[in-house]
């Protein structure tokens, strides 16, 4: 088991590609995406309807090595500032296989 940071990011669907790019740029080797997530926040309800993706979110779960976690999280700030969203960081252990 290796200590990692579990980083959970909720952004609107239109930002999916953007966040994927930031993850890659941070040198993190993988990520998991939960699509069509609904939510509520400062920018109102996102009920995830099907006419347009303007009202749906995606949720990323990223296990990041301790040394890159902080700078990666920092790199998310402009995206969250511009288009809203949430980033939660938790300590976790990763089963090395």
């Amino acid at each position, binding site marked *: 088991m290796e200590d990692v940071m579990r980083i959970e990011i909720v952004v609107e669907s239109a930002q999916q590609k953007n966040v994927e790019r930031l993850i890659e740029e941070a040198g993190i080797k993988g990520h998991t995406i939960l699509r069509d997530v609904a939510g509520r926040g400062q920018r109102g309800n996102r009920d995830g309807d*099907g*006419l*347009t993706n303007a009202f749906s979110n995606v949720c990323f779960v990223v296990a990041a090595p301790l040394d890159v976690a902080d700078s990666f999280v920092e790199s998310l700030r402009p995206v969250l500032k*511009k288009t809203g969203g949430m980033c939660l960081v938790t300590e976790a252990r990763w089963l090395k296989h």
Partner: protein
Amino acid sequence: MEFASVFSNLLSAPVLFFALGLLACFARSDLEIPQPVSKLLSLYLLMSIGLKGGVALSKTGFSIEVVSGLGAGVLLSFIVPVWTFFLLKSRLGVSDAAGVAATYGSISAVTFIIATSFLERQGIPYGGHMVAAMALMESPAIIMGIFLAHRFGSGLDENDDGEADALAWGPMLHEAAFNGAVFLLLGSLLIGLLIGPDGFEEIAPFVKKPFKGVLCLFLLDMGLLAAKRLGDLRRSGAMTIGFGLIAPPIHAGIGILLGWWLGLSPGDQLLLAVLSGSASYIAVPAALRLSLPDANPSLYVPLSLGITFPFNVIIGIPIYWSAIRFLEVAGS
């Protein structure tokens, strides 16, 4: 007769299903249409309209009438956003005004479809190239909206840390032109042109025959969403709602005059009116979330879907048609 035609629209199955959707939401029913089903329905409608338009175009070819129709549509989608933007800028701020501008410069495919049904019920011909006009009107409106936002300062808004964002023309033009909805509509149009009436015959049992029925299901969904979104407008104030009611007849009126001046047929005039007078709730929001995230979608989507769409369908189309008939009689 005009009165009967109003009623014929009101009591058509698709409009009644829209009303049922509204009612379901207002009555807090738990009726809902899953998101992938909505997406399937809108893919189907876009594909179907595109093919139909392409086949019609393959029959008529490119005449002067076709070119004027297309040109008029594109022109309207460039100018409608401009005046909309300057009208709303001081009230809503630059970003939101630009969002509404792009929305109203663009079109609503469902309104267009209901207008074609309206014409068909009365036996009035219209040109298949108007579908092409519709497809060409999405991108310019998006481009204008984003351009205006950047030109008039959205880049300098409070969120930013000093330096103004430069307008990224590349991604913006890309999104305006290759947006999924626009791409599917244009692509289907092209395929319709290539396969022609014979090829269309083979797929008509899927893309044409069930069309009206599928539209009912889609409008049920639109009704549910329109009602749900309407709540968001409460914060926006009466003036904004007023805009959603006044813009359609004004834009449609400009469309009618332009169509009349260009000598389009009455059917094409109505379709031009409806394209000009309607507003987007599929392609534009998707594009703006990428290229103009500061504009609030809880403003421009409910306005377009909850106010302008029902206005056009219930009151607008018959009124626009009366105006066209009046011009016709007056002009002859």
